[in-house]
């Protein structure tokens, strides 16, 4: 457990992707089975030990510390798990042997609710500060270290020479602690026997299409689909009443969308599609879906108010048959046939558009309602053009699938705060908070990290350093007065109301479109301009 706790601790401080990969791969390389397998399962989210409630942890610490000292400490540290990890009294006799991760996992898995407090206390007694922190984060389901399932699998592959996609292909046949996976990666066995179960298939992704590219394409070669403003997902049902919902990166989202995972355990298939929130037949704006995504486990009321919905546009397997090598035209036929057998209200088939010519395609992008999207028009964020003859290939193969997004929204906003970036940008101020005018003052409306070249970054960085008016830890406040300051042209995909931000607004995918060295802050946009761009609620 010590080595794993140190890994989690180190990961929690590490921003760079390559550094994270190396840390995980080194750990997996040097840690024996079964510990490393359980570690991998915790990183990929396939081993869920997060059942302990904060109240239980509070009770345990209250039995062991002076209430005033606990209150002062909690107030200072600001995080319950961390406070308890640091405050937990060292037992008089500490077992010398490290509590292994395998022991921890086995104990927690076989412990019922009644015995849980005792087992947790015993584990805490046997761990050091970092160990207690990691343990508490794991058992309260609050481990946030910026590692996706995909990243963890990529790291696992690196200890041999397996690609993440190869691991994804066999993942469904594996269970923690993954001894056979490591045997395979390290070359002790040639292959893993796979059976069709609830398996995630790495998704096929599209390239962005520019207007100029369209003329070179023959519309007859392409299925023209709607690009929905939801979250890409895969639902896999095993034909025996089990189903799982996966994100694009292979995170299991079943717990966040039990309405879908349970509502769609029909048939025996793997479907590619979009998660949306649909109430009374109408797709709700992205902000509604965001509320669902914010909750790891939604309550009954939230699910009734904001029901999850799966809109399918591809089928990857059916009744145990892998369909991915078939052309899209054949898969589409199988999908439509399959969809007719599904009566669940949380399921629909994503329709093709009525656009058949270059002109119609361009027009459908601007006016989805007129080309078959009807009342769902506002939930369309663009078009997908997929070659009818394309097989379903993992990753982003060239020339097969295109996405053509609606033009982004743009506003002129003023740089207000800058923060240093991560990894190779760590020496530059590369994360920007910008604002627009409201009643004579600037109010922050978003943050952006991308959209500029290295030269531009260096120039903005110089500007930030020369115009710092205040510092808060790693954040610098940058001069933003009517006549002095820096204006960004900010592009974004949509805008929602949000109680979290001072401005009451939240941008989706904001990025810097252009740096307006020529403009003064007083020329920037006003909040009213943004409010007119709000998604219809």
């Amino acid at each position, binding site marked *: 457990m010590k080595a794993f706790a140190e890994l989690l601790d180190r990961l929690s401080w590490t*921003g760079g992707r390559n550094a994270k990969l190396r840390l995980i791969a080194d750990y997996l390389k040097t840690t024996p089975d079964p510990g490393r397998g359980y570690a991998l399962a915790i990183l990929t989210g396939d081993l869920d030990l997060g059942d302990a409630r904060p109240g239980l942890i509070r009770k345990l610490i209250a039995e062991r510390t002076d209430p005033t000292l606990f209150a002062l400490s909690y107030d200072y540290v600001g995080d319950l798990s961390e406070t308890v990890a640091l405050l937990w009294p060292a037992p008089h006799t500490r077992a010398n042997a490290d509590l292994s991760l395998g022991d921890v996992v086995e104990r927690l898995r076989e412990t019922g609710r009644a015995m849980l407090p005792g087992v947790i206390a015993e584990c805490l007694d046997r761990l050091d500060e970092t160990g207690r922190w990691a343990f508490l984060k794991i058992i309260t389901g609050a481990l946030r270290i910026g590692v996706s399932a995909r990243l963890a699998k990529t790291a696992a592959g690196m200890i041999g020479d397996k690609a993440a996609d190869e691991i994804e292909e066999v993942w469904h046949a594996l269970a923690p602690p993954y001894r056979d996976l490591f045997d395979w990666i390290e070359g002790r066995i040639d292959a893993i026997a796979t059976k069709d179960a609830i398996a995630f298939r790495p998704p096929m992704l599209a390239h962005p299409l520019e207007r100029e590219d369209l003329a070179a394409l023959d519309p007859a070669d392409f299925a023209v689909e709607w690009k929905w403003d939801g979250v890409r997902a895969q639902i896999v049902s095993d034909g025996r009443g089990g189903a799982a919902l996966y994100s694009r990166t292979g995170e299991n989202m079943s717990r966040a969308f039990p309405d879908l995972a349970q509502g769609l355990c029909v048939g025996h298939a793997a479907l590619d599609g979009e998660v949306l929130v649909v109430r009374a037949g109408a797709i709700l704006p992205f902000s509604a879906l965001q509320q669902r995504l914010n909750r790891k486990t939604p309550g009954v009321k939230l699910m009734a108010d904001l029901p999850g919905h799966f809109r399918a546009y591809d089928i990857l397997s059916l009744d145990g048959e892998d369909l991915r090598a078939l052309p899209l035209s054949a898969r589409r036929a199988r999908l439509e046939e399959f969809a007719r057998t599904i009566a669940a209200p949380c399921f629909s088939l994503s329709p093709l558009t009525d656009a058949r010519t270059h002109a119609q395609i361009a027009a459908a992008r601007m006016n989805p309602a007129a080309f078959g999207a009807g009342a769902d028009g506002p939930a369309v964020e663009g078009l997908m053009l997929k070659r009818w003859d394309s097989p379903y290939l993992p990753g982003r193969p060239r020339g097969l699938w295109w996405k053509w997004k609606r033009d982004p929204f743009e506003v002129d906003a003023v740089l207000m705060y800058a923060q240093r970036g991560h990894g190779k940008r760590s020496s530059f101020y590369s994360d920007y908070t910008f604002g627009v005018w409201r009643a004579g003052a600037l109010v922050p409306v978003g943050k952006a990290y991308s959209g500029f070249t290295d030269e531009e970054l260096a120039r903005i960085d110089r500007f930030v350093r020369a115009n710092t008016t205040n510092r808060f830890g790693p954040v610098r406040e940058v001069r933003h007065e009517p006549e002095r300051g820096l204006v960004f042209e900010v592009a974004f995909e949509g805008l929602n109301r949000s109680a979290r931000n001072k401005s009451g607004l939240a941008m989706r995918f904001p990025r810097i479109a252009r740096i307006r060295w020529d403009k003064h802050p007083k020329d920037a946009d006003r909040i009213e301009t943004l409010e007119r761009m709000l998604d219809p609620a």
Partner: protein
Amino acid sequence: MFRRPRERAAPRATNSDMNADASAQILTLTEAGLYCPAGGFHIDPLRPVDRAVVTHGHADHARPGHRAVLATGETLDIMVARYGETCFGTGQALAYGAPLKVGDTTVTLHPAGHILGSAQVAIAYRGARAVVSGDYKTRPDPTCAAYEPVACDVFVSEATFGLPVFRHPPPQQEIGKLLRSLAQFPERTHLVGAYPLGKAQRVIRLLRDAGYDAPIFLHGAMGTLTQLYERHGVALGDLRPLEAADKSVAARGGVVVCPPSATTDRWSRRFVDPVVAFASGWMRVRARARQRGVELPLVISDHVDWTELTAAVEATGCRQLWVTHGQEDALVHWAQQARGLAARPLRLLGYAEDGEPEGAA
């Protein structure tokens, strides 16, 4: 000048409890900080005074401008190195353990284990004794004399890490983290932020003791004090200045020790994708470490942690505990509830809240 020997012996108090009069005469609080009326001197005064006893060389304790300063020879050296020869009128060095009559009191200095030359100031007057400990730590540190518990009636303590969440790990364990990272990321320079007086030299010494004998590169602000440590017999191995930008190439994959503020300023941009480490007791609290943008926090402190702090207070056998600065609420609560001591927070404002003023100031 401090040397004003008096022959007349102070009458001994009849019991070991100080009476109110002796208590007020031995130590009181003035606008300039702690003052000993019976001896006529301030301790670590916050503004220029006639006569100051200085516990150690950190900027918030050792300030320039006093007429006469009494301190260990090391502390006087440090003050001169930092502020110049004219930073005080006269300086008088007092060795650890040597008694000196000052006014009606007898003053002795005792090792505080905090940094080179750091001392606790013990003041004896009419059979009572007060100890002003300055900043201190009780665990061994190869770069300074070991802390020595001094029995007293009034113990004046800092409380920089005066919360039970602070339990510093063994420094060797933290150095181990740094060495593992050096092995794991051999192409990345490791920038170790450390306060230039005390922490920097201790980190270097700990690295050497752990068997790291490659050259260690120093930020320009580190040179003077590091040389001073070496003159006082603290061997630090192969150190190289890193003033010119091209030297940063030589440091690739190695250790660069710099002031904490340097890890976030323009200077650090000469290094490609460095691992930024910071050696401080504050690294124990994630929110504090995050503010610093640190990738490798090293929990290495030159102050006592909670366990050591409470043990040190108990070991003095004091009846009164005065808390100068830091997290005084928890320590005062503990002293009153758990130990039945008369405890008072002094809330001295001039001392660095985080106990380590060198990089922040």
